[in-house]
């Protein structure tokens, strides 16, 4: 296990470094002059030079590269051009919102998707199977922001069961926190639950065909025991790998969901920064979310190895 962890880290760290380099390099890829784009056409040369010096953009490439990485390592990602505060501060404020929403959405997706997939697999060809798969396909095809708007209208405006948006920190009021999280997590998690349901169903169907399942049934075990103790666990293994990959779509989808529900998260910060050409915030935000995604994948891989010892020896 330790050896696998080491090998996995040897992949993780260079990947993170290359990702960070690409993010840093972003600003050099801007066609034209970033400072000119920020200040507008009427900016004077003095203003542009001043800003350039202020942002450190007048230094040579290798100097900027080294100091960017050195600063980033110490937690300094520059200052936001528009918000007048360090990028790290903005990110730190908003990161808990995004992370809690992502984790809760993942839970929603798992709690809805896995049972749906199992029920569909057990009833293969039957009504439950057909209904589940049709629902999954429809949910996958619906734009998440449109689903979110409709949910807001039904539950927030028409029936007034839930708030229409905004965020309440858990420490402040746990009940309000959850009430504000319900709709965003459903909007974000539902599409993902459809993917999980389909994956679980496929995996479960394969497992149910296996000889050891037939052995268990031949032994006279009740069908429920056969499924829960033998089939279910093995069927979940491929699903775990999909969880890691899907976390990316959840983290990316946070940009949309946070915008619709007015949540002060990293995703929405990035979107607004893109519109204002607040480059350092864009860099910091993408770096934070991508690093999170890489870490989640690392953890999922370790979990996968912990559950299925066969992988260790590959």
């Amino acid at each position: 296990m330790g050896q696998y962890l080491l090998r996995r880290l040897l992949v993780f760290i260079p990947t993170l470094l290359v990702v960070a380099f690409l993010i840093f390099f972003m600003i050099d890829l801007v066609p034209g002059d970033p400072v000119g784009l920020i200040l507008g056409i009427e900016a004077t040369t003095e203003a542009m030079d001043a800003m350039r010096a202020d942002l450190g953009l007048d230094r040579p490439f290798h100097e900027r590269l080294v100091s960017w990485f050195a600063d980033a390592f110490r937690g300094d990602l520059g200052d936001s051009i528009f918000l007048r505060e360090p990028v790290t501060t903005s990110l730190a404020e908003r990161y808990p919102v995004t992370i809690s929403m992502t984790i809760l959405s993942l839970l929603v997706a798992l709690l809805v998707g896995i049972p749906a997939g199992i029920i569909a697999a057990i009833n293969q060809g039957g009504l439950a199977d057909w209904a589940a798969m049709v629902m999954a396909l429809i949910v996958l095809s619906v734009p998440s922001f449109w689903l979110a708007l409709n949910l807001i209208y039904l539950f927030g405006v028409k029936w007034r069961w839930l708030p229409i948006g905004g965020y309440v920190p858990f420490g402040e009021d746990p009940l309000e926190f959850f009430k504000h999280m319900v709709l965003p997590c459903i909007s974000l998690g539902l599409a993902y639950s459809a993917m999980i349901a389909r994956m679980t169903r496929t995996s479960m169907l394969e497992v149910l065909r296996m000889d050891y399942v037939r052995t268990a049934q031949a032994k006279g075990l009740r069908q429920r025991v056969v499924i829960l103790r033998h089939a279910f666990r093995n069927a979940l293994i491929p699903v775990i790998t999909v969880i890691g990959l899907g976390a990316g779509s959840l983290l990316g989808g946070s940009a949309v969901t946070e915008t619709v529900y007015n949540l002060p998260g990293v995703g929405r910060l990035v979107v607004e920064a893109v519109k204002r050409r607040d480059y350092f915030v864009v860099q910091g935000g993408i770096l934070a979310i991508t690093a999170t995604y890489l870490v989640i994948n690392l953890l999922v891989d370790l979990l996968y190895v912990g559950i299925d010892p066969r992988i260790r020896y590959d």
Partner: protein
Amino acid sequence: MSAESSLVQESTGSLSALPVQRRASSQMLYRFVRNVPGMAGLVLVFIIVVLSLGAPLFTDVDPTSMDTSVIMRPPGPGHPFGTDDLGRDVFSRVLYGGRISILVGLIVAGSTTLTGIIFGVLAGFYTRLDNSIMRAMDIVMAFPAILLALGVVAILGPQLINIVIALVIPYTPRSARVVRGMILQLKEMDFVDAARSLGAKDLRIMLRHLLPNSLAPLMVQQTYVLALSILAEAALTFLGVGVPPDVPTLGGIISDARVNLRYAPWLSLFPGLAISALVLGFNLLGDGLRDVLDPRMKI
């Protein structure tokens, strides 16, 4: 054909009909037409494409013309989908807006087919390049797709061509993977050795032998990419970083509708249904193609 069958009839002494030898492609067509999800998807896509591309045939209202006397009307006579807060006819806007979605989807899917083939064939065929190309693909896949698209738009600016680039980059690795997988399998086969022994150069083997046989799973994958890119473009435009707002797009209509959600919920309903129907159609089409082209993959 008839000469063969009469010979067989003589030798077996029976008049039983032989199964008709069909070409593989018409066999697949036969199976596809009988595949319910696939045909449903095809019909759905066809209807929407006809409505959108032939928009002038179905409505004579200009999608950008504002008539302030009919602001915020619910669906009714003259305006089947109602009007928005500037008095524009939603039905017309949805029809014309669909054009952009379809166009972007097709361009992105077509481009990723090209880039996927290039990287996939190179990686699959040349083992020396495989590692580095796949590492590069892994790096691209390390970024969540929407964030990568946002990054590209931040760099290049919000224009249609940049949205396409922004979507081609994250979706290329999937296509490349599919092509590479097929090439890896196929290059070990005898027909490649046969071609090589006849003197075929690398390029000819790649283009004439390996690529045509890899197209099946790639086509399935590309219909899904098409569906995803329509959703992604709508999301980016909804966020305000997509296609500039003067052009009516489905995502843009929904974004405009957000402000008036309380009083005019129908404004976002119809463009959303349009996007959903289009994406659903392509998803069904993809499932149908998958069932037909490789029944083992059928779930």
